């Protein structure tokens, strides 16, 4: 049974908050947060790349589903996402999100420690964490062998896109980090919040269903 609404579908009218995901090429997936405005418009807030946080109109080439908590909290988080979008913060890309918080700012991130940054997936986690939600039990996550290859690929992309050399060097110096994949974050987010924080093994089962829906 599918866990996501397929491409061409949007967030159900009764929902204010969701997550969206699509395949971005090869084995790379991309995800973001969906939120609904008062006029019904659905927007997608997502970290496209280094210092490239985007607040876009909903695009139907993504799969999506509502976040797994009740409408009251959906409305609150949608408002927070709207506030972050309005603030247009500068969000660096990186693999180690420690220290990356939205605390003490009007949607602005605290200046990140050197080499720290977010991915599209950890951006979603960071936003939810700021408001007290923890979909994943991050402590249960291992550092996986193929994460190193992915991180090396991303660093090359950052160099090719003229990312600051100091930041790239700091990210490289940090070494290999745990990777929270878009399908894992999306799968956990759409699971009923009574099951949060979801441990690694359970998250893999749900992520597999997300991958099947994307591929379908």
């Amino acid at each position: 049974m599918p866990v996501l609404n397929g491409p061409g579908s949007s967030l159900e009218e009764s929902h204010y908050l969701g997550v969206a995901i699509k395949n971005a090429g090869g084995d790379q997936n991309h995800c973001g947060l969906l939120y609904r405005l008062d006029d019904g418009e659905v927007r997608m807030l997502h970290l496209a790349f280094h210092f490239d946080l985007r607040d876009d109109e909903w695009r139907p080439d993504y799969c999506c589903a509502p976040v797994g908590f009740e409408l009251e909290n959906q409305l609150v988080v949608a408002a927070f996402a709207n506030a972050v979008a309005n603030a247009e913060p500068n969000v660096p890309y990186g693999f180690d999100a420690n220290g990356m918080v939205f605390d003490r700012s009007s949607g602005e991130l605290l200046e990140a420690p050197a080499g720290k940054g977010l991915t599209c997936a950890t951006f979603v986690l960071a936003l939810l964490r700021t408001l007290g939600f923890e979909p994943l039990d991050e402590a249960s996550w291992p550092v996986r062998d193929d994460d190193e290859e992915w991180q090396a690929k991303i660093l090359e992309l950052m160099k090719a896109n003229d990312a600051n050399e100091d930041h790239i060097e700091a990210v490289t110096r940090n070494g290999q980090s745990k990777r929270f994949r878009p399908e894992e974050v999306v799968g956990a987010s759409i699971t009923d919040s009574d099951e949060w924080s979801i441990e690694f093994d359970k998250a893999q089962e749900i992520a597999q269903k997300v991958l099947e829906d994307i591929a379908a």
Partner: protein
Amino acid sequence: MQLEYSDPTTVPREMYSDGSSRTGYTTISNQLIHEALKQQIEHCLAALQAVSFHLVDRTPGMPDRSMLRHVVTSNSASEGYVQSNEDATDLSWLFAAYNSVESEKPSVKNLTNTVQGINELIQKGKFDLLAKILGSAKLSQMSNETMLAFARSSFPVREQIANWKTFVAEVQSELDRREKNSARLLKGLV
């Protein structure tokens, strides 16, 4: 009597200048509406009295949001210290938040204003003021979403807000009173 207006800022000024029925209402209706709005304004002011603000350019009887400017005094107001206008904090969002109705779902716009207002206080390090705001909130009159917005937006700086846990406990009690699942709604906070 069914009141026409719940938001003082939508009331035409003419209704207050001499109580006449320029809008077509009877004198009695004008008086009742005026009294109700006056009570509402007094409630807002009473709730904010701990903040010790001074209203600048306030039109009597109608706190137009665009005209409200607050000069927030420090806790040492008795010493005569008043912060400069450069440090003024716009709390106009708080009127809408305090007047959110229990039975009505707030708009994304209003909740966004609440979140941005709280975020600004956090950015400026005004934790004492934020604590007073939380402490002054009449939860029994607020919507579920507004209470949750207060609680979740202030969550990142809970350690700097002396009464944060007390506030969340009161939100939990109010949600329980409304027969809502407070444990789910406050997940991650309690």
